[in-house]
């Protein structure tokens, strides 16, 4: 009797396990879309705006899958998900994913993303041209939109500028640093007063690399160093040996510690997202220096980063994908809120122009400067060109291996050789000699 009972129980257990398998995957009935919306991202920045300003349709759960960007971890996880997209159940399919300028090409020029004009995103009249161009594949099909426009500026400490240059007026400071020779001269003056010009050896990297006239790899996939990248290496060498900069990396604690009130650094470089998302130390209540900042163009026009929303092929929520995209580029109220409440520079020219011309509008963090007006000017100079699918890890690797040289741990030749070995290991398709 006992035996029979336990046998029945065991069978029941096995059956219940199997029952879980046989449950048919949530299929999408015609006219109705999936209940789970999956978004892949590498940080919480967009998630914050999304949760604040986007009203999720009733009955839909939004699922964030967040992996760090460093060492290409985000790309790895995303690639795995996209390559398994066709076999994934409807609830596990990637619906929307975020991509950065450094690797957006990899996803745009590929079947993993879909034409957004076919799902209902058609009005690009207000967006900045380069943001559309970046999300357009080689056949002219648009695959996504950016919710921000990212002209990058020189962000300087007003009090230090006053001490070094005698003025903190953005126009006057810009005049003093309008080209690299002047910038270097000011760095010398800052040094004499006991300040650093930049807090990281890589602070100026984007300013140079964004103005490159050739991509990282040529048509035959040979690695090439652009004159601008070489110029960055030479200038940084001088800056380090003269003590104009620190040798820590851009995201290191040592660099961000310079943003505190007692920091000794005059300049940082970055777009709007940099000072609202990455300069937390400057905004610290007790030790920060809120309001002691201002922006100007700096020695060269450039842009940095930017977050694009791309529509994954095979999504079971195309309507919501389109709705999110339209909200963040065309909804005037949402775009206004991004500028007004979040210190963003939105991807809506009309909204930006409205704030740029508003004499009442200013940024308290920047000591009353109208940053939107400045960015409207800077955005005119953005060129999205010479990009490759390898940029993120090449930029990251070059900085990491050159840092050892700037710290004095290796010679320049050793640093370059280490970088080339790194490229060989990371990207077998790139030819390095």
């Amino acid at each position: 009797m006992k035996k029979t009972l336990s046998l029945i129980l065991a069978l029941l257990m096995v059956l219940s396990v199997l029952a879980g398998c046989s449950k048919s995957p949530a299929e999408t009935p015609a006219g109705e879309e999936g209940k789970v919306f999956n978004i892949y991202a590498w940080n919480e920045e967009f998630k914050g705006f999304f949760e604040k300003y986007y009203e999720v349709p009733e009955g839909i759960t939004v699922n964030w899958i967040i992996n760090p960007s460093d060492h290409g971890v985000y790309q790895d996880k995303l690639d795995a998900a996209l390559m398994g997209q066709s076999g994934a159940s409807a609830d596990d399919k990637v619906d929307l994913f975020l991509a950065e300028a450094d690797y957006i090409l990899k996803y745009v020029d590929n079947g993993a993303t879909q034409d957004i004009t076919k799902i209902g995103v058609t009005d690009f009249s207000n967006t900045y041209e380069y943001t559309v161009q970046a999300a357009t594949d080689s056949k002219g099909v648009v695959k996504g939109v950016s919710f921000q426009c990212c002209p990058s500026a020189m962000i300087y400490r007003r009090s230090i500028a006053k001490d070094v240059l005698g003025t903190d007026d953005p126009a006057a400071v810009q005049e003093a640093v309008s080209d690299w020779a002047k910038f270097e001269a000011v760095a010398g003056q800052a040094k004499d007063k006991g300040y650093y010009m930049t807090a990281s050896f890589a602070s100026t990297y984007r300013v140079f690399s964004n103005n490159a006239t050739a991509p990282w790899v040529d048509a035959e996939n040979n690695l090439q160093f652009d004159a601008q990248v070489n110029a960055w290496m030479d200038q940084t060498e001088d800056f380090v040996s003269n003590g104009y900069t620190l040798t820590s990396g851009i995201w290191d604690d040592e660099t961000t510690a310079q943003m505190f009130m007692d920091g000794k650094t005059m300049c940082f470089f970055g777009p709007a997202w940099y000072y609202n998302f990455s300069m937390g130390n400057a905004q610290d209540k007790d030790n920060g220096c809120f309001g002691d900042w201002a922006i100007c163009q700096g020695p060269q026009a450039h842009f940095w980063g930017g977050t694009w929303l791309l529509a994954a092929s095979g999504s079971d929520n195309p309507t919501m994908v389109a709705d999110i995209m339209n909200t963040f580029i065309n909804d005037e109220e949402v775009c206004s809120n991004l500028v007004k409440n979040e210190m963003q520079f939105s991807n809506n020219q009309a909204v930006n122009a409205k704030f740029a011309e508003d004499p009442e509008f200013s940024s308290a963090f920047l000591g009353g400067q109208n940053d939107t007006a400045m960015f409207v000017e800077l955005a005119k100079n953005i060129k999205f060109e010479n990009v490759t699918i390898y940029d993120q890890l090449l930029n990251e690797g070059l900085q990491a291996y050159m840092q050892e040289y700037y710290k004095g741990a290796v010679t320049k030749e050793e640093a370059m050789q280490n970088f080339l070995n790194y490229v060989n290991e990371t990207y077998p398709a790139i030819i390095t000699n």
Partner: protein
Amino acid sequence: MKHPVRRLKRGGVSYVKWGYIFIIPFFAAYLFFTLVPQLMTIYNSLFENYRDGLNQVGPNFVGLKNYKTLFSPDNSGSIGFLKYFGNTMILWILGAVPQILVALLLAVFFTSYRLRIKAQPFFKTVIYLPNLIMASAFSMLFFTLFSNVGPINQLIVQMGWADVKIDFFASTITVRGLIALMNFLMWFGNTTILLMAGIMGIDQSLFESATIDGAGPLQVFFKVTLPLLMPILIYVVITALIGGLQMFDVPQILTNGIGMPDRTSTTMVMYLNNYLSTSKNFGMAGAVSVVLFLVSAGLSVFVYGTLTKRSRED
């Protein structure tokens, strides 16, 4: 059916088949999770097989090309694999030698019938504790402690031990030292407990009679404890060696995957990971794995040979 019946007649029952049945799970697991992947690795190492962006390249059969690439020197004339093998061995020796020596000493103390250390369970737990922390968390902790703005540097400057901050991650000695220290801290407790078990397995009367015969503590250790501990010690050294050759998490996290400076703390598995992480380069990663397997096997045989030979001579 004939077989068991005949045995029964002779009055004995053979349970041998149950023995085989009970070890089936182990062999099945070994077959599917170790042997097959191992053979697959060797097979994969003969192909060009990687991802370029989202596009798959290969697999194309290329024979031994991956092995040739692995052992061809770069522009500066150094062969990557040999350099990382050297790094791994140095890092292992720096950590393992003190680890085994300290563990041996502690094991002798803890088991000594003369010392009779009190609160032994407490000490055993404490020395084992570092092993319970995840290696990555431990590395992050050390990275924060020893970073340029970390507490150790603040302490050094405040106490006046040095005028300027020490950049622990810019010199080979300090980075390797930190990695060795962490491996030591993580594993000496584990080793101590293994060696204690070995020593407690030795007949106590041998120690007593040696003492009665006039042997000092050192003589007892070298003439009685060590020779009888040899089987366990060999086990400890070989497992430590294999663990050391596979060293990855501590240096990877501590150096942020760079193996700085000048790649002198890049281990073989970090090198393997470089091939695998971004491009899913199964061909090159397979070649590295196969060579790593051969090296591990060779070294294990060598260590086993030398240590058993010595214990036989003793």
